[in-house]
Every structure is written in structure tokens, then in C-alpha cells.
């Protein structure tokens, strides 16, 4: 039964990873940029809410109403000052530029907040540790359930916007061919700014839940980026619902690894990521294709 509980907790953890990764996946899908500052920006959002909770004694959930527009603004500034310029210089420069942003953010936060770990847990009261006990050994944390539910709502909302709304269609068209959208009256720079703003709002939500469910420090962005990246690769680059599946696979793998050995949490996650990456790179599909080809030839 403990094993089943570990799988359940892993799946719920997957909701957090999906929330963390969907901004990364979305930005790659639209702009073909791998944002190496993604984790650092999540930490930055967590610190924004931490300051809000400290100065106002209000719930971080209320703080989100201010933090999310602030993150959207950060996204627009990031687009027009860094990404827009670097996009013109080939695929490598945007990656290096976002790495530079990550370095500046990490060190700026370290300078301002110091090296101590912080948490938003105390600011959300009982929600941080309350759970529903399904059986004696099977339980669902209320915060984990809230995070998973939020991930489903966010991914569903984002999918709906992309599929059904004019701005969604414009974003997809721009992702498909930015040169051609210009010929039908769309300014791709503005679309990219909207896309980065949406991605930063997603990062803000992920940062908020990160701060509520765990502790965070200025240099934690790198680890978060790795988890987000693994989630995106497992789920398929640019695929939103794939991100949720990727998050669940990663979370369940980590928890099963932890069940096998206390040090197995990270190793199991990385191992599953590597297996899937190798399968994608060297083509499980192509191996199947060869088998089918041989059969049809025979």
C-alpha cells in the first residue's frame, strides 16, 4: 500500500512539475527559445510573494493578483530588451542571453535576500500540511491537490485560448511562420511579447506554489530548470498536455526511486529522462518503422 501511496504522491508532484514546465514548453512552442532563466524567474516570483506576505501579512493568494501582472510586465520588458534582439542572431544567442539573465537574477537575489532558505508555507496556514486520508496509508495533501488541479485548469485554459480564440490563433500562426504573419497584418514582435508575458504569468503561478510547498533560495533556479526541462522533454517539446504527462512520469519515477533507496529520488527521475531522451533521439519510432518495413517487404 505504501508503494501505491508513493505513486499517488508522485502523480500529484507531477502536477507541480507540469505547472513549472508549461511556461518553458509554451515559450519554446511559440518562439523556439529554450529559456534558461525559467527556474530563476520562478524563484524571483516566489520572492515577490514572500516580500508581499511579509510586508502586508496577507495571504500569498491575494499577492498573486499583484505578482502575476508584475511577472507579465517582466516578460514584456524581457522580450523587448533581450529576446527580441537576440532572436535576430540565430538560435544559439537567445539561449546564451537567457543564461545571462539567469546569472544576473540569481546573483541579484542573493545580494538582496542573502543565502537563507525561505518559504511561503507559514503564510498559508493549515493548507501547507492538511491532507485527506483515503485509507490508513493512502493520503492526498490538500496543497498538492490544489496544485494538481491548478495545473489541469491552467493547461486546459491555455489549450482553449490557443485553439479557440483570435489571439490563440495568432500565436499559433506566428509560431508556424513569423515571416508570413507579417504579410497578413500581424506584428510578430507584439505577438512574441504577449507570448513571453503569458509564459511569465505561468512561471509566476509555478513560483507561488513552489514557495508554498517547499523552501527556496536564490540559487535554486538551476535545479528547477532541470526538472522543468526533464518534464518538457519527457512530455514532448511544445506539447501542453504532454507536459502534464511528462510531469507525472517524472514525479512518479522520483517517488518510486525514493521508495527503493533514500538517494534514489533524483537518480530515478534523471534515469527515466535519459531513457526517454535516448528513445526519442535514436527513434523508438524508427526502430518500429524498420520492423514494419521488413514485414511489408517480406
Amino acid at each position, binding site marked *: 500500500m505504501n508503494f501505491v501511496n508513493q505513486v499517488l504522491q508522485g502523480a500529484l508532484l507531477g502536477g507541480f512539475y507540469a505547472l513549472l514546465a508549461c511556461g518553458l514548453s509554451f515559450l519554446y512552442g511559440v518562439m523556439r527559445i529554450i529559456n534558461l532563466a525559467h527556474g530563476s524567474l520562478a524563484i524571483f516570483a516566489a520572492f515577490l510573494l514572500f516580500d508581499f506576505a511579509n510586508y502586508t501579512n496577507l495571504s500569498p493568494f491575494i499577492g498573486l493578483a499583484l505578482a502575476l501582472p508584475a511577472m507579465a510586465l517582466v516578460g514584456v520588458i524581457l522580450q523587448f530588451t533581450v529576446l527580441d534582439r537576440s532572436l535576430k542572431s540565430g538560435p544559439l544567442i537567445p539561449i546564451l542571453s537567457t543564461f545571462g539573465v539567469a546569472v544576473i537574477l540569481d546573483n541579484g537575489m542573493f545580494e538582496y535576500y542573502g543565502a537563507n532558505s525561505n518559504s511561503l508555507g507559514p503564510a498559508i496556514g493549515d493548507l501547507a500540511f492538511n491532507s485527506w486520508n483515503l485509507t490508513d496509508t493512502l493520503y492526498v495533501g490538500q496543497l498538492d491537490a490544489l496544485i494538481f488541479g491548478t495545473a489541469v485548469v491552467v493547461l486546459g485554459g491555455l489549450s482553449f485560448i490557443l485553439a479557440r480564440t*483570435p489571439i490563440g*490563433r*495568432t500565436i*499559433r*500562426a506566428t509560431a*508556424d*511562420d513569423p*515571416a*508570413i*504573419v*507579417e*504579410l*497578413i*497584418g*500581424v*506584428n*510578430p514582435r507584439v505577438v512574441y511579447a504577449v507570448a513571453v508575458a503569458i509564459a511569465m504569468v505561468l512561471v509566476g503561478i509555478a513560483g507561488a506554489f513552489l514557495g508554498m510547498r517547499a523552501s527556496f533560495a536564490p540559487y535554486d533556479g538551476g535545479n528547477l530548470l532541470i526538472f522543468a526541462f526533464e518534464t518538457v522533454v519527457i512530455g514532448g517539446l511544445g506539447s501542453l498536455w504532454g507536459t502534464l504527462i511528462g510531469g507525472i512520469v517524472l514525479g512518479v519515477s522520483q517517488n518510486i526511486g525514493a521508495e527503493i533507496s533514500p538517494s534514489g529520488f533524483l537518480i530515478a527521475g534523471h534515469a527515466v529522462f535519459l531513457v526517454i531522451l535516448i528513445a526519442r533521439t535514436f527513434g523508438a519510432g524508427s526502430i518500429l518503422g524498420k520492423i514494419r518495413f521488413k514485414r511489408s517487404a517480406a
Partner: protein
Amino acid sequence: MTILQVENLEARHGLLIAVRGISFSVTEGETLALVGANGAGKTTLMRSIAGAHRPHAGRITFDGKDVTAMPAHRRNGLGIALVPEGRRLFTGMTVEENLKVAGAHGRKGAWTLETVLQAFPQLKPKLKARAGDLSGGQQQATAIGRALMTNPRLLLLDEVSLGLSPLAVDQVYDSLHGLMNGGTTIILVEQDLSRALGVASRIACMLEGSIVLEGAAKELNREQITAAYFGLNRVAEKA
């Protein structure tokens, strides 16, 4: 009334000069056919007018406004729309989405989803199909429809018959006849001389980046255009 004025336009691809100091004008409601062999500079000229290619020198004036340095999306807002060579549809999106995305950003006017479907009835049963899954003729109709959704005053059609079956070309040209009769100003790049002579009110023949022959379609005969097309006049002059 002159709607487009091109003066001493020069466009390059790196060191290669694709368009060499071209000047011409287009009056409202006319159909100008640009003919010429591959590499003559037709596509580069069209892309320069639409704003998709930055010219090296010269001036482009549209409806009295200098648009030479204007980005493509703003030119589209003024009424210039390009149907690019190779269609370049948003292949992951449906036909309806391809049309709607253009309609949401272009100028408002008579062209709507309904009127585009009237002009291209072959698209009606394919509205929910992915653009990438369509036949060449249906893709070309979608590409023209997408440009029309922006309600252009000047429609630039680059190689509309390229890669299409004769039947599909007939269908596309049937629809184009409707546009031309409706008074839309069109610049058409066409390799097929018979098609060009059949629809255009004026012909301009390009060779090695220059216009070597220009005149009313009814005043030019096939032999004159063929000679200009292949540069036979120059060979004769040199001899």
C-alpha cells in the same frame, strides 16, 4: 489613378543584385502580369513591394505614401497583400483558421469568410481540414483567400499556377477572373505566357533583374514577349 509607384528599385541577396533599378507604376483596377524566366527577379520584386524583402535602393510609393522603409504588417494595413510563392500556409491550422487569423488583423471591408467561400467554393467542404492535408489547388485557393481576408487594395500573386494540375489552375483562374472583374488591383507573377496574356491588362517582362519589355497586353504579341523573355533582342543587338 496610380496606386503603386516603384522608382529605381534595387534589391539584393547578399552580393547578388536581383532587381536592378526598376521603375514602373500600377493604376487602380488594372492587372499587371510580370513574366520572366526563373531568376529574373520577379519574386524579389514582389517581396520588396510587400515589405518582406528590404530593398537596397530606390523608392516604393503606395497610394501617395512612401512605404519603402515600412514593415510588412503596416503595408498590409494600408492594403498590400502578397500571396507568396509556394503558398506558405499555416499547415498545422485548419483552412477556417488560416482565413480567420488573416481576417482578424487585416483591413475591414467586403471580403469576409462568407465572400471568400463564395469566390472559392472548393474550400467550403474543407473548412475543418488541416491546410497541410489539402491538394495543391485547394492550398492555393486558401492562400489567395487568406490574402483576400485582409481586404487588400493591391493583391500580389506570386506563381499561382506553380506545381498545380491543369484542372486546379483552371479553377484558381476562374476565381481570379471574378476578382479582376470586381476591380481589385493585381500584380501577377506567371510563368505561363498564355495564362498571363489571357488575364492581364498589362504585361511587363523581366530579364536579369530589369524590365526589358512593358506594354498593354492587347498591344503585345506572343513573339515579342518570347523574345524579351529569353533575351533574344539583346543577343541580336550584340550581334
